[in-house]
């Protein structure tokens, strides 16, 4: 069965980069804001969400992650945080929010693809 991946990223260029990195792994959905992302998670029940942490306009990917993981209907959805915040405390905060994986920008598209594939295999 084809897997569904939702990419939540407010920067156009990076949304394209993640899409190109992951397109071979399944169906791709795109969101550019926290609200749009959550809406799509609830409607489409993707297998994996890649989530930017700073979503602009003060929105936080960590809040989106918590919302996904605290809702029993979506708690099983794998979350991969992608962030330019690279300190140990940022990574810990991401994992505490329930993320399954934390990747620091800049990242290698190949590594992102491998990490996403591993999460999808476990989904």
């Amino acid at each position, binding site marked *: 069965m084809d897997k569904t991946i939702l990419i939540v990223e407010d920067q156009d*260029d*990076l949304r394209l*980069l993640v899409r190109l990195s992951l397109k071979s792994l399944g169906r791709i959905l795109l969101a550019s804001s926290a609200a749009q992302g959550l809406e799509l998670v609830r409607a489409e029940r993707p297998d994996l969400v890649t989530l930017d942490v*700073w979503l602009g306009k003060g929105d936080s990917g960590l809040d989106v992650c918590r919302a996904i993981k605290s809702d029993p209907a979506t708690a099983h959805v794998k979350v991969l945080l992608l962030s330019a915040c690279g300190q140990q405390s940022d990574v810990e905060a991401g994992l505490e929010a329930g993320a399954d994986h934390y990747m*620091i*920008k*800049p990242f290698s598209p190949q590594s992102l693809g491998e990490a996403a594939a591993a999460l999808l295999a476990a989904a």
Partner: protein
Amino acid sequence: MLASPLHPEEAHRLQVLRDLNILDTAPEERFDRITRMAARLFEVPVALVSLIDADRQWFKSRLGVPFAETTRADSFCTHTILQDGVMVVEDATCDPRFVDSPYVTVAGARFYAGYPLTAPDGSRIGTICVLDREPRALDDAGRELLRDLAGMVTNEIAAAELRRVHARRSENDAWLYGLLQHIPDGVLMLDRGGSVICGNPAAEHMFGSDTGGLAGRLACALLGEDAALLLDPQHDSEAPPQEGGGHRLDGSTFPIEVKVAPMCMDGQQRYAVIVRDVTRQHELTLRSRATEERRRKHFTTATHELRTPMASILGFSELLLKRDFDADTNRELLDIIHRQASRLVDLINQMLDLARIEAGGTEGLNIGTVNVTELVEQTLSGLNGLGQNHRIHTELEADLPPIAADPLKMQQALTNIVSNAIKYSSEGTRIDISTAALHRNAKLMVAIRVADRGIGMTPEQQARIFDAFYRAGDSQGVQGSGLGMTIFKEIIELHGGHADIESRPGAGTAVTVWLPALPDHG
């Protein structure tokens, strides 16, 4: 002639004599009256109060002698201070000690009777003596009389010393009183139960009390319970100061540092307390913590901002290297890489610029007299490349006073606000730049106003406009580092100016820069 012997405790004796501060002082009636009495009672031409210094005898009071001092070597009195009681020389020409003395051979002295004078500690400091040109004897009544006169002189010396000690003590008291009145730290004296006995004006001021208003109050009510725990007779007064909260009489609190020293006064347990109001130090600590926090946040944000374009550059170049795309996609990805690399360079340049301006402070400015009209015109000619100058309308007041400014930095600041006006308003809309000289808070200021009819800002966005890397709204389509307004504010403030911002979403934004005019203009 025989050499004059020295007193066994000569050094101490001399010290005591000098400490009395009597040598070489003016004649005093209270001593002269005694020598006059001695001369009359003994019917002699010479009576002296003689003080024996290291190498002279100096006369505090003298009758019948024309000089104030003589050498000590041949003197009678040097011998007198070596013995108890009266020393009598009935006929000096028959005494081998004095037969060759110039007092005898030149001055013609034959008879001498002297009695040692003692300082309050018993040291022999000199004599009272009488001399005659005829040999004679001294009976017991005469000896007693001389002893009594010596007692009177000794009393006078002791009384003078007493007066001097007393004067010194009141001088000390005045000094201490003045010190306590003016010392900026609060000083309290507490009784054994921790009640205030007295406090200095600084303590009264600190706790908001009238003069004397602290007396009787409990230390724990003023200094807090923690500080009251220091009131222990065994407390180590060398211990570091205890921090706590002070309570003013009006109920308000303030941070204090307290040091306590247990003491004993007239057999009573007391505590000396120093209280220091550390409000200012606390504020400084808080401010430096806030600065530290701001720096940390700035660093985190800067890192984030640098990593974002790097993610595009690294990611897309890897994709281009590893995958095959059609020509259009190849071109699109290269375009993104190029755009993000330019952004990265722009960011780094702006960050370095901000860091340089912050680090240089006012010393980094190259201040000169700047004509504001020329400044605006140079700024606009620098922005020509954006191809938007046709939208800009200027209304520059003639004969503006000049300002003291670094022309290049000021041009950079203006460029940042004018380019924002261009970037955040649509093609074809008008941008107005006007200048004026106006009084603000009684100071002549030059105002430069840049107003656009662009997207404007909400009050929340306005509040953050000077934050580093903050970019208003959905600004993805707008080029920029997010540091322009931070650099602008830094430059304006270094020049002693400030900026006002008026903005409404959809209506546009106006930034007014206020800079002090040079005072000697016109």
